[in-house]
């Protein structure tokens, strides 16, 4: 029941006779048709004269400001693609097209062996824009981002600043990069974390005589089992560096063997920081990977993770 502006104003237009007279040879029918509110009123003859009513001439000066006040304070939708039903998505596409058109002549990277960049995932983009994107919509966005990504970043830094909003950071890769960048301390120490099965060990490794201190105590006092002590010293054995490094650790969580293996894991990482050539040797000895074996959960219908209840025939 909301009436539009047009139904209030009367649209009746005029075309000047000079224009018609100059351009047409045939006879002109002069007839005046008023706009009516019925649906079937849109039958128009091509040769028709209309007259235009303006509001300013008929209304007195007092009401002049009122009518124009109504018109000047009118609310309008904000985005250019309001009537599509998906204004944010369409506005994004328009922006990307504008950028592609603007940077179409700038030089681009020609290496075909460039790794594909990681773009933001569909879920995250939905959250950030407040939308529900379909796959084909998401794909069109990423096609355009790939077109823009090829441009050399030194020439167009602002563009790449814009594209950084859409990049995804692979946490695992970043972690690996960070680890590769680690160096030895000003005091010659390498600090690492080692983990195994709910045990966490903070490990400092320094060049020295071969002492090992665990939570303030020497290793022999803390670990009573020979097996645990051997597992701690195994990385030094494998690389022939038994009496060359001192180790100071803080261990928390888990049990005895878990803590011992956590310390061993920390020592391998620290040795790699000291000397990166040792990595393949340690990898061959299966010391570099973090052992992901954990206690398996209990399942319903079973006594433990795998143990079944006794089978009864009837």
């Amino acid at each position, binding site marked *: 029941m909301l009436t*539009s502006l047009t139904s209030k*104003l009367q*649209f009746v237009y005029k075309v000047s006779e000079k224009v018609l007279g100059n351009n047409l040879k045939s006879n002109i029918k002069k007839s005046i048709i008023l706009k009516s509110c019925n649906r079937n009123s849109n039958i128009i003859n091509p040769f028709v004269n209309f007259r235009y009513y303006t509001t300013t001439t008929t209304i007195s000066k007092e009401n002049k400001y009122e009518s124009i006040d109504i018109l*000047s304070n009118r609310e309008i939708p904000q985005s250019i693609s309001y*009537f599509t039903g*998906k204004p944010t998505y369409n506005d*994004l596409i328009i922006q990307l097209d504008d950028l592609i058109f603007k940077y179409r*002549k700038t030089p681009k990277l020609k290496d075909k062996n460039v790794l594909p960049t990681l773009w933001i995932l569909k879920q995250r983009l939905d959250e*950030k824009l407040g939308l529900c994107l379909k796959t084909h919509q998401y794909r069109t966005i990423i096609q355009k981002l790939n077109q823009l990504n090829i441009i050399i970043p030194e020439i167009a830094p602002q563009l790449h600043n814009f594209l950084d*909003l859409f990049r995804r950071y692979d946490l695992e890769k970043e972690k690996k990069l960070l680890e590769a960048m680690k160096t030895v301390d000003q005091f010659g120490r390498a600090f690492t974390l080692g983990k195994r099965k709910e045990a966490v060990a903070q490990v400092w490794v320094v060049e020295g005589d071969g002492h090992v201190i665990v939570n303030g105590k020497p290793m022999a006092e803390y670990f009573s089992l020979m097996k645990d002590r051997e597992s701690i010293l195994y990385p030094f054995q494998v690389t022939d560096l038994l009496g060359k490094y001192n180790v100071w650790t803080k261990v928390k969580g888990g049990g005895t063997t878990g803590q011992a293996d956590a310390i061993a894991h920390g020592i391998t990482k620290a040795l790699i920081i000291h000397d990166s050539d040792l990595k393949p040797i340690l990898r061959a000895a299966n010391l570099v990977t973090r052992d992901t074996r954990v206690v398996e959960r209990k399942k319903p219908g079973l006594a433990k993770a795998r143990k079944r209840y006794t089978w009864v025939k009837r």
Partner: protein
Amino acid sequence: MYSIQSLRNNSRAFLSRVLYHNRYGKFTISTRFISSLYKDLPLNSSKQQVIDHDYDDFKQELSYRFFKAFDDKPIDSAKLKLKDDVPEFVKQTGSFKKVSISATKNLESPPSPYDLTMSSLLSANLHLGHSTSLWNPKTSPFIFGIRYGINIINLDYTLIYLRRACKVMKEISYNGGIILFINTRGGLFSRSVIKAAKRCNQYQLTTRWLPGTITNSQQTLGHLIPKNENDVISKTFKPDLLVLLNPLENEIALEEARYGNIPTIGIVDTDFDPSKVTWPIPANDDSVRGIELLAGILSLAARDGLVQRKLMLDKIQKERKQARVIYGHTI
């Protein structure tokens, strides 16, 4: 809770909530409302508005960075190739190659309807109609003749009807109306439509027309502007003019405009009925160049109206200020 008395006080809101258009144009009462009266339940389920600050920040950041990237001046590849050891007098000799017609001339600087020439209309291929087997006899006054099995449109009439349509555009934008440019074919057609909409600060539609944007606007567009707590319905907008650049594929839009009492401008080819549109423009709707030209011309006319509106409003503000000073009281 919506009691009958409170709704009678807000009778207009009451009617808009209760009544809706049947497909035959008659009003029917929504059954949901009637059932709610007996059950004493509220009409709307009160959903709490979750204010997500995350996506507002992201959108602000996006627009800020986009404008920086857009205003930046990149170095063209041609300049990088120039050698710097060429002496200056050599650069000053020679002549500049000026391109007389560029491919993007109609997009960036379209002509006004009073500067148009027949040759520009011809070069944009606006005279080419569809084949004679697909001819709609209602377009016979616009047709010049037949050649190569297709109907040729008389460009005299395109010029006249174009100028008429431009007048309409100008007056509607002068009065502050909402204009919608529509072309659903995609690709280069959409580029011209978007440019036209940007030129005159109006609206565009290059994807599918949602059936119900005018007659069922609450459902289709109501979710875009969130409701305040005390409101019964959400705010939606309807266009005051539809500019259809391919009306053959958008007959639903034309019907909705009829129901909503909205005038339409449309490019009428030889296989389309011109009486379906209030302001027809007989021309070819298949050529990209033609639609670039027409969209540009119409948007220029709308921009003209915008400019005049601004001048008019500034003038009135001045007069008001003077009047206040003289009489010493607000109007």
